[in-house]
Each structure stands twice: as C-alpha cells, then as structure tokens.
C-alpha cells in the first residue's frame, strides 16, 4: 500500500506549487501579484507544518503505524514551501534590497517570528534522512521536538500579521492547540486506556 500511497501523496503535495506556477505563467495573480505568491506559499507552509504535526496523534488515535511514514515528507514540503515563501519576500517583494529587510526583521515582530520559524526548520531539514536518525540516536528526537515550537511560531506569525484574528488565524490556532494537546501525556493515556478496555 505504502508503495502506491507515498508517490501519490508526493504528487499531491506538489499541487500548490503547480497552482502558483500556473497563476504566474498565465497572469492569474490578481491585483497584488507578489502578495498573492506570498500568501499562497505562506498558507501552504503553515498547512504542511500542521499536517506533519498531525501524523503522530493520528498514529496514536487510529493505532495505524503508517501515518509516521509521511511525517518526514510533509515536514520537508513545509520547509520547501517555507523557503519559497521567504524567497518571494526577499526576491520579489524587496528585490534583494537588504536594508528594508533588516529593518523589517528588527522592527516587525511577525517577520521576526516567521524568520525564527524558518531558521528552526533548517536543522530539522538537514537531519531528516535516515542516516542522521542513526547518527544522532536519542538526540534526533530531541532536535525534532523543535517542530512544536515551529508550529507555535508559525501560527503566531499568522496572527500577528493579520489585522484581526478572525477567521483564518483563529482556525489555525485551534488546530494547533488541538494537535499539541493530543500529545500531552494524560491525553495519550486516555487513548491507551480506551484501547485496553
């Protein structure tokens, strides 16, 4: 099953890229093209972060181990779209003009925390392959706990850049809180108990 599923999911994960490429090529970006690319890539970064964070709880709830096999791929797609998002900001929005970018990072908390989220994704991306899991052993798990922090930073980024929390930032916040709560030991305990009885 995994043999068919994995490539299918991989292709599905590329759909947001295909959509934005289409919009760029056929001039479908609308009134504010750069912002459209920024928003599209930003939203998909956030969605992939939350999707990758959902795999472990899904495994625990459904008792199906296979979810874990997609965790790395989803995380790497989050990094991929996050990098496109960052490059859009640096390349298209500010045309590699560093002064306003530095100014933004220092003065706008939503940029600061977004950049922090992206930087935290770097070590996870670098250590994502199987070899690294073997080399780092227990430390690998510790490093990859950063993903919770990335999720929190990413949602904060969205809340802070929005004029009001209604509705999208709020929805993502609720999803994040749910996903993190499902990882709390006493909640996990509930699931275990259920499966025993």
């Amino acid at each position: 099953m995994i043999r068919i599923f994995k490539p299918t999911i991989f292709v599905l994960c590329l759909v947001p890229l295909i959509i934005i490429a289409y919009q760029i090529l056929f001039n479908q970006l609308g009134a504010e093209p750069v912002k459209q690319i920024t928003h599209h890539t930003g939203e998909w970064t956030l969605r992939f972060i939350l999707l990758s964070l959902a795999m472990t709880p899904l495994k625990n709830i459904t008792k199906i181990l296979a979810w874990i096999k997609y965790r790395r791929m989803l995380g790497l797609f989050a990094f991929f779209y996050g990098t496109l998002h960052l490059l859009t900001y640096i390349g298209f929005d500010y045309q590699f003009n560093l002064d306003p970018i530095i100014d933004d990072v220092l003065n706008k908390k939503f940029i600061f925390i977004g950049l922090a989220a992206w930087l935290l994704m770097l070590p996870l991306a670098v250590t994502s392959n199987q070899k690294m899991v073997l080399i780092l052993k227990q430390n690998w798990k510790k490093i990859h706990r950063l993903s919770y922090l990335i999720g929190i930073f990413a949602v904060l980024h969205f809340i802070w850049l929005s004029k009001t929390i209604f509705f999208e930032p709020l929805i993502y916040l609720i999803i994040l809180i749910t996903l993190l709560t499902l990882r709390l030991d006493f909640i996990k305990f509930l699931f275990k108990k259920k499966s025993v009885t």
Partner: protein
Amino acid sequence: MKLHKFKSSEITPESLYINRRKFLKKMGILTGSALTSQNIITSAFSYTPETERKITPYKFVTTYNNYYEFGTSKSDPHKNSKDFITKPWDIKIDGEVENEITLSVEEIKNMIPSEERVYRFRCVEGWSMVVPWLGFPLNKLLNKVKPTSKAKYVKFTSVYDPDQMKGQRFPVLNWPYKEGLRIDEAMHPLTIMVTGLYGKELPNQNGAPLRLIVPWKYGFKSAKAIVNIKFVEKMPVSSWMNASPKEYGFYSNVNPNVSHPRWSQATERVIGENIYSPRIKTVMFNGYGDEVASLYDGMDLRKNF
C-alpha cells in the same frame, strides 16, 4: 487644540487641477449614457497631482477591497455585496448642530452635483491605487447645517445591517463602523463624498451609496455606506482605534516616517503591476502635503499618528 480654519485661497487650483476635458480624453471614459444617471457638472476641474502614475484598472478598483462588513478577504466585498440594497437610503446630519437634517441620497445627489476627482488611494496595508472618483466636497453637504460652538469633530457612522452584511454577524470590529475627522479636515476641499467611480454609479463593494474619501489619510479613514454624520465636541473613537489603539491613531495621515507594526509605510505596492515591479516610495500626506500640511502646523505627527 487650536483649530486651523481653511481658506479657499490656500489651494492653488491652477497648479493642481488639470482641465477635466483633457483628462477625460486621456482616460477615454465617461462617455454619454453612463453619465446620465449622475448629475455631473461639466465645468469642474479634475484634481490630479501626478501625471506619471497610472489610473488603476476598473477591475482591480472593484474587486480588491477591504470592507469587513462583507468579509475579511479582499475578494469578499465584490462577491458578497451583489444584493446589497442601497435604495432608499437616508443620511442624518445631527449632533452639535442648530438644525439637524435627514436627506435621502437622491436628494443629496440632486442638490450637489458630482465631479470627477482622480485621487491616490493609499491603504495602511502598504498598497495603493489611483482612482477616478465621482463626488463632491463634503463641505457642501456639511454647510447645510449650522454647527454649534461646541462642535469640534465630525463623526461618521456606517450602516449596520447584519442581515445583509455577513461580516457584521461576528465581532470582527465594533459595528457599526465608525470614523472621525476634525472639522477643518472634514471641511477641506480635498475631502469628498463619493457617489461613483469611473463615471459610473458607486459599486456596492466600494461603499455605495455614499462614502467618504480623504485622500491624504490611509484608506480605512474613508468610511463607506454612511448613514450618519454627527458633529461632536470630543474626538470620536473610530472602530479601528477601538480595535487596536496602538496601531491606528485618530489622524492616520499617510506618513512614511511613522511605521506600523505590520506594514512598511516607507514604501507601497502599486495595485495592478506585475511581480517584477518594485515598490514605490510613499509620500508624506500621500502627495497632498501642499494642500493639507498646514492643517497640522505645530503638531507632532509621530505622537498624533
């Protein structure tokens, strides 16, 4: 605070207004039938401080809007305002006045002819358009009442109608939308009440039937679908000030030197450009400094942002 009284001699029409006809020809719009429903004076001049900035295409002016009453996404107002009923529509002018009045939009349009005004429109989010509005100076409407000596500010209230306006069913802002100006700002000849754009009747998503435009302030100051204009003694608290006083001040003049926690105010993106177009520099008072800077003489615009 000392109020600055505006004298009409302070503006220099010759240098700022171009012949409307020349403008119309250049634009290739405003022909025949589109105009008959509007009462437009042909002798009016069009305000246009720049020749190099392009007028934003109609498509973007009418599909890219911030109008939270109809939803928080830019495309929502266009989609959700189609069936919004704007007739009949009354506007009450009251508060600190000797003779409060209620006028229908039709009465107002018949009483005060609209003229073409091409203004830059700068949103606090860091984007801008150039819009050919149809409208008339607000002072022509305000002159219908006599403010008492107590009156210092003008408060604008937009319509509250959650049945027709989905966005108002949620506490996104403290509905109805409220805005305010100092009386001298409201009486300034650049401040207009808008009845249309691109030579046509004002589309619902742009604030029909009657909205404010204050071109030297960020777009949110220009309240839409106004039902009440009230002269008041105390500085009104606008909906955005109420939502986040640190981010949105009463004045909200376009000012590249006062930065907003989220958006760069030093530069702006021009709506309708392509992905390779750079941001352009934002100009103090959105380029209307010659006309309006004197309103704020002696004021610290960093404090009074």
